[in-house]
């Protein structure tokens, strides 16, 4: 995709990229997954009584990772001492309703629906929500500049944690 102009990126290409990302997450290939982000990439999960476009600088989120903290999150999750994910849960990210909502400069504004299942210790939890991505079109291909998972839930209930990447 090295010479691809932003105007020519298709939804199918974006979907392939997002499906690849989902596969990496479900196979716990988290270090590879980090490679899908730009060097200034960020990952957010706002609280559910906060506007979807809120800033973590002045509102309480569940997750607000800059690139450094995202790398640390991955490093943590791959350790035995990340007790919430030892042994590792099984997950399945179902990504759907993908749409390119806008194109500006080198960046795509992408929306999608997501349903993630997490199974561990005889229990399956579901996380329902939408995604908003800022995807950079780079010489190396598509890269995530910002991933925001907006939960369509009342808090996390009945779940107790976000110990996986949503």
């Amino acid at each position, binding site marked *: 995709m090295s010479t691809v102009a932003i105007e020519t990126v298709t939804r199918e290409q974006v979907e392939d990229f997002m499906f690849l990302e989902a596969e990496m997450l479900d196979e716990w290939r988290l270090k590879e997954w980090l490679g899908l982000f730009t060097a200034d990439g960020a990952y957010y999960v*706002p609280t559910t009584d*906060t506007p979807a476009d809120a800033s973590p600088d002045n*509102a*309480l989120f569940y997750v607000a990772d800059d690139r450094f903290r995202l790398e640390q999150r991955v490093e943590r999750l791959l350790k035995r001492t990340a*007790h*919430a994910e030892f042994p590792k849960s099984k997950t399945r990210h179902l990504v759907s309703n993908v749409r390119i909502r806008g194109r500006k400069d080198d960046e795509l504004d992408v929306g999608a629906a997501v349903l993630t299942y997490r199974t561990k210790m005889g229990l399956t939890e579901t996380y329902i929500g939408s995604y908003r991505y800022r995807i950079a079109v780079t010489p190396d291909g598509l890269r995530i500049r910002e991933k925001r998972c907006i939960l369509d839930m009342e808090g996390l209930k009945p*779940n107790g*944690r976000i*110990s996986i990447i949503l």
Partner: protein
Amino acid sequence: MDQMNMPLTPEQPAVWHDPARHIFKVSRRSFTDTQVFRDEYRRIFDTCWLYLGHESELVKPGDFVSRIVAKRSILFTRDATKKINAFFNACPHRGAQVCRERKGNAKSFQCFYHGWVFGSDGTLKSQPGAECYPADFNANGAGNLVPVPRIDSYRGFWFICFDRNVQSLSDYLANAKEWIDIIADQSEVGMTLVGGTQEYQIRANWKLLTENSIDGYHAINTHATYVDYLKNMQGSMSPVPFDGTGYDLGNGHAVIEYKAPWGRPVAQWIPLWGEEGKVELAKVRARLVERFGEARADRIATLNRNMFIFPNLVINDIMAITVRTYFPTAPDAMQVSGWALAPQDESPWARKFRLSNFLEFLGPGGFATPDDVEALEQCQRGYEAMKEAPWNDMSKGMIKDKVNYDDELQMRVFWNEWQRRTGATAMAREETR
């Protein structure tokens, strides 16, 4: 040897406290039994002062919050006269919830079922078909929203009680007031909850979260990855070793107060915060010294506090401040609400680092709380064997004259009050046959 781990008698208290022999055990039945769960609602949640909300949630006249407290839906309002009220969110006519929004601003609340309208002070304003009722229908106020029997506040924290005859909030809070002061004094204009609520459910008994919230003993094991994270981050720690003690605050309240290496926005600088942060924190610190003198300023700025207010309020003033409350929905399930508390007058810089600090450690998406949740759920699983393996041990530090912050005194304070109120026994009647 087996007998050593069994109750001495089936009817002995659930909390087995023998100071002379340094024994403090808690029956695992306390975490699993439905009768204990029902007794807890009757003898604790129906009779103790319970945290409802913070004054910063109701700024303007007409602001309201609806919230579940001990299973009841409560409407928390600031009325036109600026008075703060708490009503049962149930229409006096037929019982439907008059407010179905979680928060907002409204002059009145209309029950959608038959259309009765109430002011934010709870008074009945109108009802369709009023001509079919006597002219003095509401002369005795029976048509108004029912107020919660007792409501009172301390330093911006609002509490309610369903027992009209409860002691005053001030007496109830006992020595916890001193520690609430330490937190409230961090702002000259008042503390505020930052927007955004963390709400989650843990599949474990609610008392496990009480223990965990004031447990200085588990951090090194449970939170090994958080400590790794701090070490990986350049300049994330000041050269301050963990050191401190636990206190019994009376009436089941307890606190641990200690030094720790992490940065505190009020006010312990870490190199990561750079020169801008150094200048900012020096200003915050200097103002505290002006207001309170060196000793108290130092205590406010550099000590951390994990405080528990019986039965279910946690205010932890650590790398950020969290206010957390939780209610059981079953013996093995609780719902948790967590907020971030901050000085209203802190700078955008401080607010940003405070929230960043908060998320690193706290909350269900942080680097620590998910592992606490896992620990609590694993404990609950262990309690399935409570008939054969009936006791938890909570004796750490009993042999000492002065306990350390990572001993278990603060949990023993909670459990002794819990035992006093519930009168629970180590085994259920049917198990003794």
